[in-house]
């Protein structure tokens, strides 16, 4: 943690996760301060997505703790984690293909009972993503990859999270589209939403995040400011082959 971030919003300590008998994470420690954008970088299969899945409650940790805003949320179910203010936008987008763009958004605010509030948020999403407004009646499965990614992010924001977990937002997108997505991430962060982003493209990740953790075979090997990492080609090539 840098001194400029007084409040730690999320602290993960000694996190262990296993898929069946195969251990995927062996003791992850990380912390994210309120308002930060932090990146998890590292090679394919290093365990970056597993970290996000454990935080959002899709996976149950076998050991360690996840403390959110002072509360221990380790092992809580996914719907309770969303309710607590953490939204997870998963890898490969996972929009509901046979539902319209609008329905996808409405379902993103599933825990909001006020209809009026849901409509307001749909309006905000359309304001932020004008292209989704144009396609609001279209089935999500018929959107382009970039549009689906925008929809997935917009849907995650429908719960008005304090923190967004963003998994591989540029996967399969053209460089131009990826730039657009990261522009959106920057804008979201500018509105006070804390972001923890997993990204294989190191340059994209470091361009948007102020700090990064390098994940290597289930552990954190390095933690540094983006600027430091970008200036250290040796670290980059050693860990990431960038």
């Amino acid at each position, binding site marked *: 943690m840098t001194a400029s971030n007084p409040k730690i919003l999320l602290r993960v300590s000694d996190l262990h996760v296993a898929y069946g008998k195969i251990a995927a994470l062996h003791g992850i420690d990380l912390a994210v301060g309120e308002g930060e954008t932090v990146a998890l970088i590292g090679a394919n299969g290093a365990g970056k997505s597993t970290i996000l899945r454990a935080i*959002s*409650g*899709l996976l149950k940790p076998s050991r360690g703790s996840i403390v959110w805003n002072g509360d221990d949320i380790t092992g809580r*179910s*996914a*719907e309770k984690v*969303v*309710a607590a203010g953490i*939204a*997870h936008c*998963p890898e490969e987008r*996972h*929009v*509901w*293909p*046979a*539902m319209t763009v609008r*329905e996808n958004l*409405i*379902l*993103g605010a*599933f*825990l909001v009972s006020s209809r009026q509030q849901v409509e307001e948020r749909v309006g905000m999403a359309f304001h932020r993503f004008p292209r989704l407004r144009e396609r609001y009646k279209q089935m999500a*499965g018929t959107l382009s990859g970039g549009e689906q990614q925008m929809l997935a992010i917009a*849907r*995650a924001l429908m*719960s008005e999270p304090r923190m967004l977990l963003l998994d591989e937002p540029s996967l399969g997108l053209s460089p131009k589209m990826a730039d657009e997505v990261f522009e959106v991430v920057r804008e979201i962060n500018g509105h006070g939403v804390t972001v923890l982003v997993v990204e294989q493209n190191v340059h994209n990740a470091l361009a948007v995040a102020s700090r990064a953790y390098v994940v290597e075979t289930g552990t954190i090997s390095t933690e540094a400011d983006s600027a430091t990492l970008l200036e250290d080609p040796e670290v980059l090539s050693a860990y990431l082959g960038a």
Partner: protein
Amino acid sequence: MDMLLQFIANGLVSGAFYALSALGLTLIFGLMRVVNFAHGELYMLGGVMGWLATTVLGLNFFAGLALTLAVMGACGWLVDRFLIERVRDQGEEPSILLTIGLSIFLTNTALLLVGTAPLTIEGPLPNKPVFLGPVVLTELRVFAVAACAVLILAAHLVIRHTRLGRAMRATFQDPMAARLAGINTARVYASTFALGTMLAASAGMLLGSIYSTHVSAGGLVSLKAFVVVILGGMGSFAGAIVGGLLLGLAEALWGGYISTGTVDIIGFIIVILTLIFKPYGLFSTQVERA
């Protein structure tokens, strides 16, 4: 010619019941990927519950139907939470074995409790004939068909236009995304199974008021529901309705013009033809499941 219209009318009446009972089966399969071999037994229990409520407890038909729906809905919920939950996400085979076991258990438990005698449910209307042009039906049958239509419509509205229905469709299309949106998927599965059970049970009670019911009725009902679902397309709502009506019509015409003794054969002919020429059914949902 007059006979043809009469056969068609009869076929549509039984088709409405086939549709209603197949709807629960296709809903449970489409959403949960559970091939429910106990479906016919849930239908049978609906008839038995309806009989208990009206004949033993002395309730009128509508109060009895409400009670039956409530009790059977609760049963469906419990079956899901305590049995199907254990084999979730383990492929289709474990759930097939589980529901076959459940069907044997339910039949024999019902046999123990109410015996083999046919059970007649007092309908809300008399069996007075109604003349619609050349076609003769009874008031009770007209009522029962209307009740089927209302229940099918209600199920459709629940799935299309309620928060629960949206959660069901989201869970069906992408369970992980549903969990991340804050949907309690375990509850969605249990609600779906409860809804499917209620549809089967209501068909059982309605039909029990026209004919009669007995505890071993489940097997044939399951078979016919499978015929309808295969014809219409596994998991397809519209398919269950069209498939049900087609089966009812085919049986009525076969019975009318060929032979009443071999009516049950027509369902199997339909299944074989469907599997040869249109293996995903008339209303394939393969695209939707991509």
